């Protein structure tokens, strides 16, 4: 009987720990969206994005991916090939949409090529425009590598929805938990 009591206590402790310890409480499944076809994330800029008010935000997001994860990037210049992993667009997206990521071409369950669409006018409503653009760009690239939306308090990172709460750099970076998922995959 004592053995059962010890086992019970151990199980309850494990359950409680997984619920309340920060690392486990913020655990997320991966991928939450879809996986890219490899750890090399190639990208290109459409003409509209290159001539937009801030194409540098696309470069910023790709560099963040390259410098903070084990994934690598390659800039293929102007968009032409449907095998390029990410096509960057600047569009006026209808309604309140700030940015979108969509897998356009699939290879089974992985994504061959995705669009990232940025609505600068919508993003620039409110404060901290430059940082907010960078957050949105990092956020959309996050979707193309498997990350979903994370509520503030769950993961304080670029994967929150909407405007950044502050200029704190954490809103333009992936969470360590997400990076561990990405690096384990690639």
């Amino acid at each position, binding site marked *: *009987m004592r053995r*059962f*009591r010890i*086992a*019970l206590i151990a*199980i*309850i402790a*494990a*359950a409680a720990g*997984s*619920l309340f310890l920060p690392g*486990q409480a*913020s*655990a*997320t*499944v991966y991928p*939450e*969206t*879809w996986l890219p076809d490899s750890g090399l994330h190639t990208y290109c800029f*459409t003409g*509209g994005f290159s001539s937009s008010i801030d194409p540098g935000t696309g470069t910023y997001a790709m560099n963040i991916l390259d410098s903070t994860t084990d994934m690598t990037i390659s800039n293929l210049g102007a*968009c*032409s090939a*449907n095998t390029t992993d990410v*096509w960057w667009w600047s*569009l*006026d*997206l*209808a*309604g*309140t*949409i*700030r*940015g*979108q*990521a*969509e*897998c*356009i071409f*699939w290879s089974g369950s992985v*994504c061959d090529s995705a*669009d990232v*669409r940025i609505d600068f006018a*919508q993003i620039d*409503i409110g404060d901290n425009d430059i940082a907010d653009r960078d957050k*949105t760009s990092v*956020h*959309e690239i996050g*979707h193309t590598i498997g990350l*979903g*939306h994370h*509520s503030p308090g*769950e993961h304080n990172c670029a994967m929150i*929805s*909407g*405007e950044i709460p502050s200029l704190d750099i954490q809103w333009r970076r992936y969470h360590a938990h997400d990076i561990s998922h990405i690096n384990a995959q690639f």
Partner: protein
Amino acid sequence: MFKRYVIAMTAAAAAAFFALTGCAGDRSATTGTASEAQADTASATQLASAAARGLELDYDKLASPAAAVAASELIVRGTLVGVTDGISYSKAGQAGRSVPYVTLVIKVDSVLKGTAAAGSTVYAQLNISSSADAAQLAKAAQNLKVVAVLDDISGWTPAKGVTVVRPKGVAAGDPLYLAFPDGLWLQGAADKAMVGVHAERAEMSSAWGAPQTLDQFWAALGKAAK
């Protein structure tokens, strides 16, 4: 005593399992199978997952019911009676890449704001995945109840020089309505909770009071509209 321990241990193990499997989206709480949906136990999860497969949106939220009422042109509650082709553009997307829409056909039961009457039909545009189409979504849309907070996007165009072509049912001169990502909620008979296509209940701000059902969402809007 032994039996009580076994029950307690099973419950604890189950709790541990669910905690350890992480934070799956709240849509999983209302999962229904295809056969259930076909058998008069409609579920909105099928429509939502088909419409949003491979499509993720970052949007400015409707911060509160009052903000939703203020930002919208039309707020209706009704039944989804069809899904048809949506707006298209005068210029095709580059290399087959575009931003597709469908039209949600809503038979109106109640109106909270705007010009529509009970019994009338409202057409709302919804941004969908390129891998989905209207016919596929129409099958999944049967018998779903809906609350739609709608924005008038007449005159909107995605890029310079591109003209938006209206779908059938939306005459020139009529408002062209778009559902706010977090202003469109669906619920079928098999769903314990309302389901968003592009939004999740957990992402709603606390000012909404954590509505779980269409009734609660509608009540929050109604209170704000008074």
